[in-house]
């Protein structure tokens, strides 16, 4: 291969690899429970979390967030990973302020390590909370 071709291929890799890895993959905050591990655990319990996708973590002051509307049995799912405790407090505050009489029927948030799981039922999809309780139990068991 000629030096020019090698150089061009190198530049191409330099541009494409970050786009490939950082643009569409699921980012993870090192040292805390990963979203992928949560989804894997739920999957083993029969819950399909495929529509829980990577989202902008900034509104929740998090390092990484994934969410899905009506993602599992009609429930909204948000999972955020944090790097420090101050950011967790800000995230909790944001979640609390998002729960309003008009916007939710049921809402629950739990923390394992520095990862917060928020489940919101906006459409009475889980009127007795059994699905929410199962999802939360599986999440807490990962501790």
């Amino acid at each position: 291969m000629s030096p020019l071709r090698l150089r061009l291929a190198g530049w191409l890799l330099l541009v494409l690899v970050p786009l490939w890895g950082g643009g569409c993959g699921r980012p993870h905050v090192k040292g805390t429970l990963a979203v992928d591990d949560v989804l894997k655990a739920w999957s083993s319990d029969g819950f399909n979390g495929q529509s829980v996708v990577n989202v902008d973590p900034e509104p929740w002051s998090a390092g990484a967030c994934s969410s899905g509307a009506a993602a599992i049995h009609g429930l909204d799912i948000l999972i955020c990973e944090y790097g420090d405790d101050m950011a967790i407090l800000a995230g909790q505050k944001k979640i609390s302020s998002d729960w309003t009489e008009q916007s939710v029927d049921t809402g629950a948030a739990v923390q394992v390590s520095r990862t917060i799981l928020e489940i919101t039922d906006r459409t009475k999809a889980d009127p007795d909370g059994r699905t929410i309780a199962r999802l939360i139990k599986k999440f807490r068991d990962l501790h």
Partner: protein
Amino acid sequence: MSLVSRLRSVANVFTIACPIVPFLLLVLPLCLASTVSQSLLWAADAPVGVARYRGIHPLWPQTGGFCYIDVPHVHNKRPTDLRTYRVLPGEENLYVGDPVALGYDGTRYPYFGPHPLAAAGLSASEPVYCYLRGPHFHAEQPPAGASFVFKAGVYWFIGTFLPAFERDLYNMWVNDAPVLTSYEPPQVSLADAPPGYVQPAALRVKPVVPGAPGALAAPAVPAVPAVAAVPAVPAVPVPPAPTPAAPGKKNLRGGSSPSPAHKAARKDGPS
């Protein structure tokens, strides 16, 4: 290298890259779009009107439906019968009644008489007490370290009640809350109490006046013999100890009047 060969090299590179670039152009906007649309879901305005709950609790209008979320959570509805709740710091509503009496069909533990509650997160130094007089169920085992004895199929609290129990005696009104007509409490009476079991003095001399929350009757109701606590209902198996009792059938017929068994169970206070 000639100009032609150089151009050929560049063309080769683009030949390799071409299948990838359109793919990226297609996928990247999708990723970004999903980010934006998901974010909008949570962009609600601030007015807070939700009620906080500490654990499991009956659903509205308390005719058999139950919420099984056993961690702090919120609903857009407030408790309907405050006699069966305690409001904790942070405006959290903790259900303190008998869950089975209102339709709960999960794991349950049988108790007799008042005792400290074991809900997650409650302080041992400032316990929250259950004020149910007779046999009843809870979804939690006795708190670790507390003085309970398991006898005749139920847990009996034989420890010391802190002053908070007397101070908050108005919570006895939980005994006046309705239960499902099909509810059957544990079949046990005060006569089955273990040695050393002493009911709080307040239960024996200060009955609550129905319909007057917080008020205590001025002359005490005449004492009822302990045997009166035995409910006149067909016997049902008492759950084995110390494992949780098997879940019973769920009643969805509803009903607001106390069952004979529960009424009888309430009479066992004075002794």
